[in-house]
């Protein structure tokens, strides 16, 4: 159909209500816009606000049509909670990559046990750390990440969010 050439990159963000899934996908989508791509993003609001499963699809490329990632065509499944990996697995294409907070949890402990007084990582910026891990696998310019984070986090928390983003990048490579 595209002569075998892939022109659209598909990312599915999955987590639970309250984990910042939608905020992270907003930052990611903005960053793709700043990088000059056509971008579409799809999410379901409503009952998911009450702690249920939340997913958000972001697609970027030369020309994106549907806002929903077709089944079996996701390049990345970004899970904000380990429990959301298994049932979402069918969205991935063959060879697609799953990004989970496992490494961060291994080092800092589960999100609900984070000590906000002593750690750079908090329950509120955990999502940005995961974006840091994802950033190693997509072609966006560093400047655009910074711009996108700045556009989406409360004033005054930007520096902290940026340092957590780099924390994610560091643990994503090690």
């Amino acid at each position, binding site marked *: *159909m595209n002569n075998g050439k892939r022109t659209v990159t598909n990312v599915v963000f999955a987590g639970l209500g309250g984990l910042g899934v939608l905020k992270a996908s907003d930052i990611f989508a903005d960053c793709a816009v700043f990088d000059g791509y056509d971008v579409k993003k799809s*999410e379901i609001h409503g009952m998911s606000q009450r702690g249920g499963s939340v997913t958000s699809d972001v697609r970027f490329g030369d020309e994106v049509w549907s806002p929903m990632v077709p089944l079996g065509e996701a390049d990345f499944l970004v899970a904000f909670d380990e429990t959301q990996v298994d049932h979402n697995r069918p969205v991935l294409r063959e060879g697609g990559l799953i990004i989970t907070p496992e490494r961060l949890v291994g080092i800092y402990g589960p999100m609900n046990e984070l000590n906000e007084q002593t750690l750079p990582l908090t329950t509120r910026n955990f999502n940005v750390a995961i974006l840091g891990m994802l950033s190693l696998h997509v072609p966006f310019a560093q400047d655009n990440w910074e711009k996108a984070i700045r556009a989406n986090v409360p004033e005054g928390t930007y520096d902290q969010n940026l340092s957590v983003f780099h924390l994610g990048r560091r643990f994503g490579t090690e």
Partner: protein
Amino acid sequence: MQPDRKLLSGNEALATAALHAGITMGSGYPGTPSSEILEEFNKGGGFARWSPNEKVALEVGIGVAFAGGRALVTMKHVGVNVAADPYFSVAYTGVDGALVIVSADDPGMSSSQNEQDNRRFALAAGMPTIEPSNSQETYDFFLEAVRLSEEWHSPVMFRMTTRVCHSKSLVKFADESFAPPKPGFTRNIPGRVMIPAHARPAHRRMRDRLAKLQAWNETSALNTVHEGDAALGIITSGISYVHVREAAPDARVLKLGMTYPLPFERIRQFAQSVKRCVVIEEGDPYLVEQLRMNGIAVEDKPEAFRFGELNVNRVRRILANDTSPETVIKGGKPPELCAGCPHRMTFLTLNRLNCIVSGDIGCYTLGALPPFEAMDSQLCMGASIGIGLGLRHTLPQNEARRVVSVIGDSTFFHSGLTGIAEMVYNPPKNGHIVLILDNGTTAMTGMQEHPGTGRSLDHMAAQQILPEDVVRAMGVANVKTVGYGRELEDALSEAMAQDAVTVIVMRQPCRLMKVKTPAPKCEGENDDE
């Protein structure tokens, strides 16, 4: 980089278009996926208000448009059911200014009780209807809808769906600007007072207007053809279009932007220009039925694809006549009542007292799920009271006394009031109990204000109506306001031992409210206090 384009959801794009089109007033009732439209419009400086329900919201919009203003009225698909009465008749009367009614449909029911296809309402009422497929079209088509409404003196339905409302895509704004509306009242009694003698000619005028609109739509720029291989032709509209373009990039596609009244000649020509002609539409076979009735032979989709949303995978299957079982992504963790939510204790109490609970629509509907399983019915907004009364009328005394109607504060004002009137007017012999769960907000849809909160849409101070005052004034003698836990349990037990009509208001603020809703403000107060 494309600095002239912004990544916007369909709802944000519509709100921006409403600002650019000089909408005089936005009215509506919150309902997913439509709620953000008026909030965004208001944030951008537009004048918007939440009404107690969709019927009133539409009536307010009709008044704005009768006065020569430009009205935007928003609701979700089932809201049009509530507003159906004025909806059908405003199609007869037409308007002086502009009236655009947004129906945000929810195929797949991401947060609704049914997946009705409101294109049926277009056909049934004779309401011109426009459907966008992404944020850019939402912006462009809304401007066109306002123009059309004003030029043709006709209300227009703007039908969106969840994926159009809540998906984000890039939007470029128009350069042109709208002249401000010119409000002014022109008396037109035969045109606007729909007594039968006036309504009969009004119906003929409406059909005449629709015939002209249909002729106009034959060449309208709202409908477009993507030239492609004539081997496969696809007729589609709304969100289905983007799935089609991805699933069948080589096909020739007729995309209908205005789906009522339909441009049959144009469609006929298209169908004749291709070898195979398939209609791809989400939900009901609305287009298929209309085309076949007009002698245009088209292929439809297998019945299995009537349910739920379409997507690229499903469109590929329809085109390949593939009806093998589909892979379904399981829903994952279901929603549940928040930690510390006052409804949790309430449902435990209702369970402990073995109540038969006639429920309603709101967060508290989650009381039907485990671990509570404490809600026995839920159909539509306000139905808790009427259904509870029917149960009371019918069940033997020992069961009848266990029936409790449970309704939230916002829903109470939306359509519980008439239920209370029914209860007072026609009380069952064993009386009845209505429990109003007043958490001080419309929590379900994201903490919107309503007549009981004492704040208007923009969170400024407003006259507050207390449910206790209303039901007392309506003639309920036993009215109690309680906190939760023991107090609620005692009040319920006492009421269940009597054959009287009782209203219990359980007042406990929503746990999320502190975070999301600012304290009431007065005119002139600073925003960033």
